[in-house]
């Protein structure tokens, strides 16, 4: 089996496993939050269904990826379908987790108190730190564009460009998350450490930016014909990091506590 076929197989299996990985990460985050407030969170029954669908889809996707002559343009279809089929089941799992974790997130209380001190993101993370991901992304993308402007006969631009673009997406996603944690709803008896959470999100953001830009730069000048295994390995690392990053961002709405919203009067 050549490196290209291995890369095809790995990308197909990663596409198929993405919904399951995302659901597993979201469940883990929601469960950790529920435990922190003294509640439990059982694995939804639909999660088993997702595992079954993933395994059933992995089989034809894997066979197709292994048998199609690499690199095959049909892999877009195999990867796309391989993702879409389990994603339907994954959507249901996410909605079940969301519903089941509601008691851990919403406090039903008629008497409510709130602080009159404004909260801002810079109270939890100095602005000098916050510019770091922006600086890294800007510098990394400028360097990427400059390197890409120099023509190379064997260059494949699509994959490195996607990874470079992913870094800006992570900055935007995670900055929104930091803002949400800093200024978002809080209940008066909330004991969770906002500073710690904001800093953990920041470190995850920085790690994701470095990983995606690192992969983008590493594969930019790589000859995919002679270094197919290395290219596939780097893309898999970047892809797995990207999936984890998206799953964490997706789970951002499942942490924190707020009072049950009062209907508008």
């Amino acid at each position, binding site marked *: 089996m050549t490196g290209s076929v291995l890369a095809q197989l790995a990308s197909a299996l990663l596409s198929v496993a993405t919904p399951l990985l995302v659901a597993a990460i979201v469940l883990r985050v929601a469960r950790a939050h529920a435990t922190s407030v003294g509640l439990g969170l059982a694995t939804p029954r639909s999660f088993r269904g997702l595992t079954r669908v993933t395994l059933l889809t992995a089989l034809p996707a894997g066979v197709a990826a292994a048998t199609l002559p690499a690199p095959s343009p049909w892999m877009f279809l195999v990867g796309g379908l391989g993702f879409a089929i389990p994603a339907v089941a994954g959507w249901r799992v996410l909605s079940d987790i969301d519903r089941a974790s509601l008691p851990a997130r919403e406090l039903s209380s008629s*008497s409510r108190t709130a602080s009159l001190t404004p909260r801002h993101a810079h109270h939890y993370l100095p602005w000098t730190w916050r510019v770091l991901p922006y600086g890294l992304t800007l510098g990394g993308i400028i360097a990427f564009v400059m390197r890409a402007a120099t023509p190379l006969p064997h260059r494949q631009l699509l994959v490195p460009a996607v990874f470079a673009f992913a870094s800006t997406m992570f900055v935007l996603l995670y900055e929104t998350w930091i803002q949400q944690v800093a*200024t978002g709803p809080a209940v008066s008896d909330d004991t969770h450490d906002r500073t710690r959470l904001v800093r953990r999100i920041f470190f995850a953001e920085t790690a994701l930016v470095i990983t995606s830009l690192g992969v983008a730069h590493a594969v930019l000048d790589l000859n995919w014909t002679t270094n197919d295994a290395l290219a596939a390995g780097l893309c898999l690392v970047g892809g797995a990091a990207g999936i984890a990053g998206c799953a964490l961002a997706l789970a951002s709405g499942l942490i924190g506590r707020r009072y049950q*919203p009062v209907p508008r009067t």
Partner: protein
Amino acid sequence: MIRIDLNDGRPLEDQIAAGLRHAIAQGGVGPGKDLPSVRQLAGDLGVHWNTVARAYRRLADEGLLTVRRGRGAVTRDQPRTNVRMTRATLRDRLAESVAAGLLGGLSRKDIAETFKEALANFGDRTRS
């Protein structure tokens, strides 16, 4: 801190406005200080943002806050209020409270002491 109670008969907007007045009068929010954004306070209390915005606007109309679009609400250094009207309103409200106290069986002395205790909780914000 501001407190609201969903079982209280008063509308939420009134409770929030009263809580803010109380905090400003007590010195919990000093003159010229920023108040939390409408979004933050609404999120913390679990109410619609429009309820908080209306309470802020009401206090701005009373001359206790300055609300600037995009910059949030700030307590005024010198509240722009009509002293004569404030005194008249206070007299009416006190009269109601004294009547309720007397009807509830309190003596004049008890009422005077309760009033002094309540007053002692607030700092002096009189104009120089």
